């Protein structure tokens, strides 16, 4: 017969083994209250969350992730069912650059157990996402070939991206007539959706990958728009034309895929949009930035970044409540969307902090755009429970130095300029200058400035 001491001992050993099992689990596991207050947490969670935690505590899961995933508290609170998966494997982007194996992308799963409790799973999925991205490119290519197409336009373009000829297919799909020969292929794009540099980038990408594809709204001759998939591929026998700059060098295929748009957009929305404002999220922002920096590294060009921060936003939340604060953020998102071009990436980076990446834009133009936005916002009134909330924003502007640094440096500089705008009294725009970086008391992140 087993003695009481033995059974206590075996229970104790079992408990210790179970504890070690949790200590060693290679994923982060957290149990928290519905408000995010952490009850139990395993070591990998601490490893991943501690570097993010704004207050250096792991008291509240939502607070720890607030800087990189601002919508969690809201999404959890708005989850309509009594229990179930609030979201599964949502990607959270931390930083753009690889710092010696530091995680760049976390995956977060949140399960609501009941009205009082949630469980979370947190994983570093940086390597996995990188692999996926390469696969996605191949998928797009296969999609382009295999999907049933009703009609397409085929055009030849030269090394400068100018149309070499005209044919019936171009007329059918786009409505443009023969006069377009010699024009750049950007005539098929809405005016604010293509820059001269991007026009050439696509040709270069086609040269190095064998093809270049994009999808988006395109323009017909009558001004109407359609959802289009555009493929550019180098012509195999173009060397035969020698050095003639106006000889056909690429073929361009435009396909009207308007009926597929709804499905594509929904997928995009889920992965690349901020839940509250429907602007680009951090993931979309950092991917766009990476692409722009790659392109600028190959062919130097201007690139500007503006960061916007709603002034005294904490005050708005405290006085009118979080739902009103959210309405202010949505209003600001709307003004941002109206102010900037289709080619610009307008994103919500966190809390009340927004960023706009402006390709082929110098400091003067970026400052003017930021000022236009600031002015537009200062005239806005947001209705909230009988009150009308006026609000303002501050902005920091930085532009790419010849070849120096990546998006993290540009973001840091824009943040420093933003802090300057805050310190000078808010509701204003400031540009980054050399002195700002050497100014000792600039905080690391602007959101501390309020």
């Amino acid at each position, binding site marked *: 017969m087993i003695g009481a001491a033995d059974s206590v001992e075996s229970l104790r050993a079992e408990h*210790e083994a179970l*504890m*070690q099992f949790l200590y060693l689990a*290679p994923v982060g596991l957290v149990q928290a209250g519905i408000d995010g207050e952490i009850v139990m*947490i395993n070591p*990998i969670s*601490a490893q991943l969350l*501690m570097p993010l935690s704004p207050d250096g505590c792991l008291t509240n899961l939502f607070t720890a992730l607030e800087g990189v995933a601002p919508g969690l508290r809201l999404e959890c609170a708005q989850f309509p069912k009594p229990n179930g998966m609030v979201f599964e494997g949502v990607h959270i982007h931390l930083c753009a650059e690889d710092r010696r194996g*530091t995680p760049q992308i976390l995956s977060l799963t949140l399960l609501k157990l009941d009205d009082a409790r949630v469980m979370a799973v947190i994983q570093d999925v940086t390597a996995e996402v990188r692999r996926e991205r390469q696969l996605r490119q191949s998928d797009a290519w296969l999609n382009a070939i295999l999907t049933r197409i009703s009609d397409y336009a085929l055009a030849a373009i030269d090394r400068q991206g100018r149309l070499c000829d005209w044919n019936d297919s171009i007329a059918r799909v786009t409505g443009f007539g023969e006069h377009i020969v010699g024009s750049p292929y950007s005539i098929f794009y809405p005016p604010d959706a293509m820059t001269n540099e991007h026009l050439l980038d696509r040709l270069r990408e086609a040269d190095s990958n064998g093809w270049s594809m994009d999808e988006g709204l395109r323009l017909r001759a009558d001004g109407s728009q359609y959802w289009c998939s555009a493929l550019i591929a180098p012509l195999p026998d173009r060397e035969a034309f020698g050095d003639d700059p106006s000889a056909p060098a690429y073929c361009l295929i435009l396909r009207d895929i308007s009926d597929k748009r709804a499905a594509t957009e929904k997928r995009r929305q889920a992965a690349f949009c901020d839940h509250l404002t429907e602007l680009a999220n951090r993931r979309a922002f950092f991917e766009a930035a990476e692409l722009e920096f790659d392109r600028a590294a190959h062919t130097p060009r201007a690139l500007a970044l503006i960061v916007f921060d709603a002034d005294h936003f904490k005050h708005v939340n405290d006085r009118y409540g979080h739902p009103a604060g959210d309405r202010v953020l949505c209003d600001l998102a709307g003004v941002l969307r109206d102010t900037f071009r289709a080619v610009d990436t307008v994103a919500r980076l966190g809390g009340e902090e927004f960023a706009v990446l402006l390709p082929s834009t110098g400091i003067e133009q970026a400052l003017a755009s930021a000022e236009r936005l600031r002015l537009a916002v200062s005239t806005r009134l947001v209705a909230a429970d009988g009150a009308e909330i006026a609000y303002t924003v501050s902005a920091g502007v930085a532009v790419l130095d010849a070849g120096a640094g990546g998006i993290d440096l540009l973001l840091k500089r824009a943040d420093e300029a933003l802090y300057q705008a805050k310190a000078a009294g808010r509701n204003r725009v400031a540009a980054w200058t050399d002195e700002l970086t050497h100014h000792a008391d600039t905080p690391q992140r602007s959101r501390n400035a309020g």
Partner: protein
Amino acid sequence: MTSTSPTFDARGLADILDASSPEQLDALDFGVIAFDAESKVQRYNAFESQAAGLSPQRVIGEPLFTNVAPCLNNFMVAQRFEDAADEGSELDDTIDYVLTLRMRPVKVKLRLLASANGVAPGMRYVLVQRR
């Protein structure tokens, strides 16, 4: 232990711990984890064992940052030891941290100790004190 027991923030603590017997380490009122250049845990005192709920046999000889305290495997802690080793410099930093002792978040101060390379190939230490 007698009044000569060193405190968490004592100067020259690494040398004192190096010279301490297992019984002396067990009498300390803060956690001691000593590990070698390969990050294998060599000493694990009673305070730490009790707080984490793990007996020393489960921990000694295991790689610290992957098998014992994965929560420290980031740039705030593990990277500091690596950087100090790469530069051959001494490490003596104290930081605020949160450990997940028995799966509860516990606020602690961590003192990270490593001697400069080339001096003695001494132990490295993570010391844990509750705040």
